[in-house]
């Protein structure tokens, strides 16, 4: 087991390094030049060259990448002379357009995105798995059909529709939360209710679409597992129907759901661009979107992209480890 874990961690580290290199390679070939963009209207080749040097773009992409990696562990200086700025480790770059260390920007955006992702995740898991189990238990009855209707609505409503509808009714029609409260950060530690109520609707909008898929997935997994031979054995032992479902069926049925759930959660941690935009949440998604749309803020884009990829890799690792805990057949071999 220990060998398995250490091997998986090592592989994940290699993948992370490769991802960051790939990100640098990709951005190196993008058809725009940050040095030119940061120059303004009256531009001379000298100024561009100076900018390029200050931005650290006057060297090969792999040297830029190496400096980036160094910065993560050692911190890094940006600019020079009087304009020298130091970002402490872990430094992910310096945003010259926002005049801030990228780490600081990430530090502001991350709690928002994490709040959004965790709440939505819990909500859709509870909703999806519960509904899935119920419709499997009462399959082909009106309860099952009702949940199918929910699934259809959920999957066919993209977040930019459901989010806007929620915004329209919750904020504008019924005033359940104040429009001014949108996007305000309430710490879950000092103001749990404020945190909860400001995130509830974004959660719901995200959870709806995911829960629909999870309902369907849980339903089919539960039905499939309940026809397994070991379920018949459980009944032959005299296990009650309730326990057959909640103990014998659900654990194997939910194991594969864990895999997708982990990856979906990681994907959300990278930033829910649409939902954050609709509900004015200053999270990673909005940070990325602004960096791309407004100012080609390369250090921010590199950092958020790498971070999003890192979340997926880490989630993959955690899912595999959790799966090993759940399924003894994987644990041993």
């Amino acid at each position: 087991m220990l060998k398995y874990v250490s091997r998986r961690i090592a592989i994940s580290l290699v993948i992370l390094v490769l991802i960051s290199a790939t990100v640098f390679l990709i951005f190196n070939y993008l058809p725009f030049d940050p040095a030119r963009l940061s120059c303004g209207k009256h531009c001379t080749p000298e100024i561009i060259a100076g900018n390029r040097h200050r931005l650290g773009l006057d060297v090969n992409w792999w040297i830029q990448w190496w400096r980036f990696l160094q910065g993560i562990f050692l911190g890094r200086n940006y600019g020079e002379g009087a304009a020298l700025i130091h970002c402490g480790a872990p430094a992910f770059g310096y945003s010259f357009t926002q005049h801030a260390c990228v780490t600081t920007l990430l530090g502001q955006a991350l709690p928002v995105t994490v709040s959004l992702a965790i709440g939505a995740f819990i909500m859709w898991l509870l909703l999806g798995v519960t509904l899935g189990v119920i419709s499997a238990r009462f399959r082909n009855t009106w309860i099952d059909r009702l949940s199918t209707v929910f699934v259809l609505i959920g999957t066919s409503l993209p977040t930019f529709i459901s989010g806007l509808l929620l915004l329209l009714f919750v904020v504008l029609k019924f005033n359940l939360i104040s429009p001014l409260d949108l996007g305000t950060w309430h710490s879950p530690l000092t103001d749990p209710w404020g945190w909860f109520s400001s995130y509830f609707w974004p959660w719901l909008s995200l959870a709806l679409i995911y829960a629909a898929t999870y309902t369907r997935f849980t339903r089919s997994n539960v039905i499939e597992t309940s026809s397994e031979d070991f379920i018949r054995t459980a009944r032959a032992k005299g296990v009650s129907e309730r326990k057959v479902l909640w103990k014998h069926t659900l654990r194997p049925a939910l194991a594969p759901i864990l895999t997708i759930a982990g990856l979906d959660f990681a994907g959300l941690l990278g930033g829910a661009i649409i939902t954050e935009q609709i509900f004015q949440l200053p999270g990673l998604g909005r940070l990325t979107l602004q960096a791309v749309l407004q100012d080609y803020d390369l250090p921010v884009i590199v950092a958020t992209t790498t971070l999003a990829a890192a979340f997926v890799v880490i989630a993959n690792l955690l899912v595999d480890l959790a799966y090993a805990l759940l399924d003894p057949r994987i644990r041993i071999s």
Partner: protein
Amino acid sequence: MSNLLDVKGLNVAFPTIDGEVRASVDLNFELNRGETLAIVGESGSGKSVSSLAIMGLHNRARTVISGEVILHGSKGSMELISASDETVRRLRGKEMAMIFQDPMSSLHPYYSIGAQIAEAWMIHNEGSKKDGMKRAIEMLDLVEIPSAAKRAHEFPHQFSGGMRQRAMIAMALVNNPSLLIADEPTTALDVTVQAQVLQLLQDMQKEFNMGVILITHDLGVVAEFADRVNVMYAGKIVETAGVEDLYYRSMHPYTIGLLRSIPRVDQIDNHRLDAIKGAPPSLINLPMACSFAPRCEYASMVPESRCTQSQPELEAKESNHFARCFLPAERIAELRS
């Protein structure tokens, strides 16, 4: 030997769009304590379906069931078909237990062998998990699993095929049931292991004085292990007799065919196996005739084509030996030899 199980007129049918599949028709038999009844037949003959129905393990939503199954258990007699689900559930695993064909897929992959046996004990007894585990180790010891205390904490995939079936037997017997249904318990096992598992079943039967219903299509297993045999064809018992009567004085053409189709070591010439020609009939809308008639080489010997006109009843051919055939016993005996 005291009476343990009475099955009277058991019908099991599955309604489908094409019509009702009659998997078991008017099944009658009884079983005593300490006795082994083998139910023999090819796939789809209704042997498994009827046993699952006795255990109450059939799919209730999709099965139409009628008749009587009376279990004379340790706490008095009980009719199972009309009993509530909850009543039958309490009997399952306690008064009657079942083991299945494939022990790998029949054991839960996520729980240790010991935990699964302990669960079977804890359902029907007051006691902690620790007591259950202790009992599980005792049972694993009894079915001759080496270093049971250690292996109880292992998972099914760490056991060999034979050991898994032993563990299944341990689980089935943990509450000392009076009825054990073994549904092809050796089919999925290596031939060398089959004999050991059968021997174990036989030892356990003596130890617990159980009635055993052994479902199989392996006539070798039947000869070694069974006291009585029910031969089933297309949902009906076509012949029932003591094991020796059945083997040496078969009274139904189907049984004769089955016995002839066993490969024999002493036939060293390149003799082709005597297979029964044709295939079993569909169980939907069976005609009012002998179900075996289309495949029966003796059907033409019955006058007035009765075999295709009406259904033969299960009639006594000899004492304690019944067969569902129009041919008189003496005629069958002639044809058999």
